[in-house]
């Protein structure tokens, strides 16, 4: 094997040899450079392989003397990994920059080669002054590379960079020389054992060394110079700085911290957290994509610093966590910078142009999800482990800070992604794809997935993840060029087979939800046959959501659960954002989901604390801050069920989604949150739990959610939004039922779960299909459609009767159970609110069916056809379900009762034949249905007997007060039809919650805007920042 020192030989020799290459032969020079980097990579890679396979680390001595007398280098596992990574990214970056480097000439090529070489040595060296020299090499090379593509801005940025690094290098040198003075050595290992921190001056020297490395890492807020470089430099260089340099400097920090001793760890974490939260916060206002990426890079480095500071606490997991975060950041940030170079757009809004080439959306999406820490990327597993370990060791506040920062990062990254996916792109010039630029991007994308898989395999819990659904998603993704019909069939067959395989392994509770997810999924997918063409991207994301849902059900460990949860979030986000105007709603959905997911993550961490296992059982009986843990779990799950306060994403997201997506995300997806709440409540100990106020508060929340959801639905003019608000209300019932923590309450809740799935799927599918036909969501632009689409009308009528709870259809079961439960529990007011919400529900349901199907047929709808058969099939299948449930409620309720009795044995219903008997009353579902239908038929027969010949009237046979089709909302009777009620109840409809969230975001954005004013653009001010940073940290750490 070749000695690692020859990385230096190759790098320098190559650079010097380039001087012989004639000026014109730029290709030769560039190829020599690439070969040199590849060769360096081969050396480090071969060491990496040998060290992974148990080889021993290599010490390189120079000058024939042992350290500390001469400079030595070390090639251990860390070094081998990092230098391999640097060389790989260097090679890819070299390929990416091929043309830019060539046009800048041979000198630039030399500089690039030396830059990569210098990073290698920085990683390997064990001598502190040598480190200084090579850091100088790297920063001078950076100063040169910044002006690779020379613009006024890049020159300014380069100069500021030089000023800053000049000061930092001086501080570093001062620290080194005094460290030498106190220890008599320059060797890092020697300094470690010398323990110079004990002397007063020695600790100052150590501080100077540390702070200069911190500053080199561009810690917030003394980092204006670094940001300018990210913004102004060629994106290819930005990629190098963000991934390669930051990685190398991070490792330097690791070495130095090792040297300085554990008493500094805490402060490093402190600086890290300030940097992480601060730069992510400030990035909120950023409109320039490259500068935003710069902020994000700094944030990520801050996170890595936190991890480093906790290395003694995290123990063996430190390197795993750091690896996961680092490698995700490494590839993703490089990829994003490269994309920025390909897209050639600075403003984040202009990134909409990327949509012109859908593959690029996939690339960008991958990078952003990897940065935020979604599965299956390494950062997901790393963040998981980090949070678990931090909470387990009692560092909850740190977790909160970290998650807050991550949240901010998600905000701006997803906003950016939203612009890319949905923004206006007509007037933006399309970008060219150059092969040499896209190859590196492609390689890092693939690497992210591969590394993610292996990261998961590395841990025991991660290895247990079921990858089959994901493989299926990947397969569908590959097959995306096929027409809808084929993909739909594959998807349906796949899901059916999967369900067939999985269902024997599930207990009853999980079976219910799995059936809703998968059977419901199949039914809604059938509607997909109505679409023509390819429907690019639909199937992978839909299946991703289902993969996540099924992973939640199957989860044996909390990690698997969270894994599934995040997959489901990602998939549903993409599904929702496919709608035409769904971008802002997609964003708020994502942010609430991430916020909820972080609440879950924290809570799962608290559950893990002190348990030492990730089995799902740990949420039963949490011991560490149980009130908070259960509260957070519930909040996390409630973001998905859109409880009041966390609901503002739902109406838009569901309302603007595609016709067959709305039922998926409404009827099916919301149940994932319910499942979570169910698990939590079981975990709290079921009937005998000691958390009195938590279920109580939850109950009130459910009741108020039910009321306000329904009330908001009443005042909607948009049919799908109406249904969306209705979902909020219905989920409120479910939450209330579950919160009662009694057998009847749960039975009511579960009967709602099933019922809501059935009728909401029917309603959304039907209305969605109608919308597809008539081309508008606005109800006042519809009317009289019963004549054109009677089957759709019938479906909606059955749906709304079932929803409203009017006997004899299935909705009444839930109501009846609820009132019994309420009486038993004594939650009379909640019950009254619920009843009132039910009354409100009639209003919007009538409005829905009346405005869409009854009244006058609109002129432009005279020729619309009945909704597509592909929608009717699932709709009527579901209606069959409703009918069965209505006529034989005991078929559903008895097994449900048995299932719930496992958790709530007391207060069960007793069944006498068809009659359910509770403590308070009785209800014979079948007989009620038969009686009502019987009476109905008799009356109908009487009517038919007495009206033998009814004269069929045409539309205009009645007195007709005109409607104006051109401005239908002004004269349409159903427009603002509940004005009277509104006048009476308007205070209840003030969107307080939305206003509150708006205020929160405004506050954050304003803070960000004020905070970022410190980056005045004046290089001198940045120097002042640096010096101030040094002084402040000094007085914080040393204490004056």
């Amino acid at each position: 094997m070749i000695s690692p020192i020859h990385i230096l030989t190759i790098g320098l020799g190559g650079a010097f040899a380039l001087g012989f290459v004639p000026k014109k032969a730029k290709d030769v020079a560039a190829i020599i450079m690439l070969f040199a980097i590849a060769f360096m990579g081969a050396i480090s890679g071969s060491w990496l392989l040998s060290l992974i396979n148990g080889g021993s680390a290599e010490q390189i001595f120079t000058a024939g003397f042992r350290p500390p007398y001469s400079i030595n280098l070390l090639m251990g596992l860390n070094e081998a990994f990092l230098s391999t990574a640097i060389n790989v990214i260097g090679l890819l970056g070299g390929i990416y920059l091929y043309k830019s480097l060539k046009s800048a000439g041979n000198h630039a090529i030399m500089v690039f080669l030396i830059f990569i070489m210098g990073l290698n040595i920085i990683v390997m060296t064990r001598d502190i002054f040598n480190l200084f020299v090579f850091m100088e090499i790297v920063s001078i090379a950076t100063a040169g590379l910044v002006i690779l593509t020379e613009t006024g801005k890049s020159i300014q940025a380069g100069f500021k960079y030089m000023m800053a690094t000049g000061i930092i290098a001086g501080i570093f040198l001062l620290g080194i020389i005094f460290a030498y003075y106190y220890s008599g050595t320059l060797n890092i290992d020697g300094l470690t054992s010398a323990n110079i921190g004990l002397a007063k001056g020695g600790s100052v020297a150590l501080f100077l060394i540390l702070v200069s490395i911190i500053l080199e890492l561009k810690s917030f807020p003394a980092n204006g110079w670094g940001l300018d470089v990210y913004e102004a430099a060629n994106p290819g260089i930005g990629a190098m700085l963000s991934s390669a340099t930051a990685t190398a400097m991070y490792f330097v920090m690791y070495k130095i911290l090792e040297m300085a001793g554990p008493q500094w760890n805490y402060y490093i974490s402190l600086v890290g957290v300030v940097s992480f939260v601060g730069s992510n916060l400030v990035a909120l206002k950023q409109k320039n994509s490259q500068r935003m990426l710069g902020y994000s890079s700094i944030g990520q480095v801050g996170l890595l610093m936190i991890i480093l500071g906790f290395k003694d606490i995290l123990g063996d997991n430190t390197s795993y966590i750091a690896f996961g975060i680092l490698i995700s950041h490494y590839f993703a940030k490089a990829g994003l910078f490269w994309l920025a170079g390909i897209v050639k757009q600075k403003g984040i809004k202009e990134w909409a142009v990327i949509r012109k080439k859908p593959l690029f959306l996939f690339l960008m999406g991958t990078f952003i999800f990897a940065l935020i820490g979604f599965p299956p990327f390494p950062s997901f597993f790393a963040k998981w482990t980090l949070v678990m370990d931090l909470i387990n060791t009692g560092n909850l506040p740190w977790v909160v800070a970290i998650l807050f920062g991550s949240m901010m990062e998600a905000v701006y990254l997803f906003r950016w992604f939203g612009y890319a996916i949905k923004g206006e792109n007509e007037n933006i010039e399309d970008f060219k794809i150059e092969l040499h630029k896209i190859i590196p991007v492609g390689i890092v994308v693939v690497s992210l997935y591969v590394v993610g898989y292996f990261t998961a395999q590395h841990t025991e819990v991660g290895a247990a993840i079921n990858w089959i659904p994901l493989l299926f998603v990947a397969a569908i993704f590959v097959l995306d060029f096929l027409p809808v019909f084929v993909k739909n069939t594959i998807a349906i067959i796949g899901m059916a087979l999967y369900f067939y395989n999985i269902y024997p392994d599930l207990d009853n509770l999980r079976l219910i939800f799995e059936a809703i997810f998968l059977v419901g999924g199949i039914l809604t997918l059938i509607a997909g046959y109505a679409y023509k063409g390819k429907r690019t991207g639909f199937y992978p994301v839909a299946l991703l959501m289902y993969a996540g849902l099924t992973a939640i059900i199957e989860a044996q460990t909390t990690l698997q659960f969270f894994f599934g949860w995040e997959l489901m979030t990602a998939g549903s986000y993409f599904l929702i954002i496919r709608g035409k105007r769904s971008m802002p709603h997609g964003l708020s959905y994502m942010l609430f989901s991430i916020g909820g997911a972080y609440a879950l993550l924290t809570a799962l961490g608290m559950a893990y604390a002190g348990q030492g296992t990730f089995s799902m059982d740990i949420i039963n009986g949490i011991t560490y801050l149980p009130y908070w843990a259960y509260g957070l779990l519930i909040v996390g799950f409630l973001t998905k069920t859109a409880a009041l306060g966390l609901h503002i994403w739902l109406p838009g997201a569901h309302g603007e989604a595609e016709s067959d997506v709305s039922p998926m995300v409404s009827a099916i997806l919301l149940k994932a949150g319910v499942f979570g709440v169910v698990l939590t409540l079981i975990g709290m100990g079921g009937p005998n739990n000691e958390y009195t106020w938590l279920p109580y508060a939850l109950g009130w929340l459910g009741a108020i959610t039910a009321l306000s959801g329904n009330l908001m639905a009443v005042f909607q003019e948009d049919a799908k939004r109406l249904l969306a608000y209705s979902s909020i209300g219905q989920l409120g019932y479910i939450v209330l039922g579950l919160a009662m923590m009694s057998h009847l309450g749960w039975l009511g809740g579960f009967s709602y779960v099933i019922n809501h799935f059935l009728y909401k799927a029917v309603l959304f599918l039907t209305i969605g299909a109608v919308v597809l036909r008539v081309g508008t969501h606005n109800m006042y632009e519809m009317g009289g459609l019963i004549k054109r689409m009677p089957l759709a009308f019938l479906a909606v009528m059955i749906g709304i009767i079932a929803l409203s709870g009017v006997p004899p259809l299935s909705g009444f079961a839930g109501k009846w159970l609820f009132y019994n439960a309420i009486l038993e529990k004594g939650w009379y007011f909640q019950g009254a609110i619920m009843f009132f919400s039910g009354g409100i529900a009639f209003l919007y349901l009538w409005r829905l069916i009346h405005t869409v199907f009854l009244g006058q047929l609109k002129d432009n709808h005279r020729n619309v056809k009945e909704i597509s058969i592909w929608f009717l099939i699932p709709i009527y299948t579901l209606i069959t379900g409703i009918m069965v449930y209505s006529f034989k409620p005991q078929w559903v309720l008895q097994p449900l009762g048995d299932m719930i009795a496992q958790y709530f044995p007391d207060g069960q219903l007793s069944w006498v034949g068809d009659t359910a008997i509770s403590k308070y009353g009785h209800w014979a579902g079948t007989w009620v249905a038969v009686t009502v239908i019987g009476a109905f038929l008799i009356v109908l027969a009487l009517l038919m007997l007495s009206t033998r010949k009814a004269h069929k009237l045409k539309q205009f046979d009645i007195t007709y007060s005109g409607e104006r089709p051109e401005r239908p909302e002004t004269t349409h009777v159903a427009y603002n039809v509940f004005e009277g009620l509104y006048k009476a109840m308007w205070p209840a409809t003030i969107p307080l919650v939305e206003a509150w969230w708006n205020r929160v975001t405004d506050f954050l954005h304003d803070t960000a805007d004020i905070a970022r004013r410190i980056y005045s653009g004046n290089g001198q001010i940045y120097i002042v920042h640096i010096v101030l940073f040094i002084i402040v940290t000094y007085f914080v750490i040393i204490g004056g």
Partner: protein
Amino acid sequence: MTVYVKFGYTLLGLLIVLNWGFLMGATFRKIGARVAGRYGIPFYQPWLNLLKNISTRTTITHGVMYYIGPVFRLTGGVGLFLFMPMVFTGDPAGLWTNYSFEGDLILILYFQVFGMLGMALGAGQGGHPYSAMGIARGLAQHAAVELPLTLAFLSIAIQYDTFSVYKIVEAQQGGMMNWVLFTNPFAAVTIILAMLGAMGHSPFNLVKAPNEILIGPATEFEGTYLGFMQSAGSILHVMEAVLFMNLVFGGATSWIELIVKTFLIYFWSVFVGMVFPRFKIEQSVTWFFKVPLLLGFLAIIIYSF
């Protein structure tokens, strides 16, 4: 007792209720006219109306829903009757308890909407804007009325620890002082007030305004439809009164008692209607959210501690 006997008694009960509804309706029209200084209709006018309506030879339809609307309406009325115990005889499966063993108070509460819903849909298909307006107002007011009413019902259910109407009636036997009116006055007063809205007389009859003006469901539906709706209306009026009687006024142990009590209950709402002018819909909603709602809360509060 066989199923057929039960069915026969139920049918008989329905006929009594229907005729009593007609008679009561005519009586109050008469009283109203006299108060206003007019002569008024003869007491048999409703029967004449029914006959005349059913025997019209031509009839129109706007579509299936239009046709089925009155069926819903009448089924709603009949259903309510079927699920309501009428005369208390001490035997839960007694002759005049109808099919109340198939469900309890909650069923009745929700079933009230059945007729309203069908009516709304049927009128809706007529395509006339006024019917939509009337229904919208009706639903809004209904929602507002139901809130205090539900609180009162819940209070009674808590009081007797049951949702079974039969048991509630049973518990009130043995003297006037056992009536909910005296044992649970808050609930009773709430019901007495909210009842005004449920009965739909002035001042809470804006719902009917559109058809008063020019046209609306009652004009739109003619002939047999109107006949059905008038029958349904009579049945519903009586059944509402029976519901309140059962819940608040101790039920009835005989048909006579039932007739007297329902007459008085009905009289109360007509009496108020004659005194007060009509409310706008926002006025009536806010009215129900004031005193009745407050009383309803009180009715619950006294039982929730």
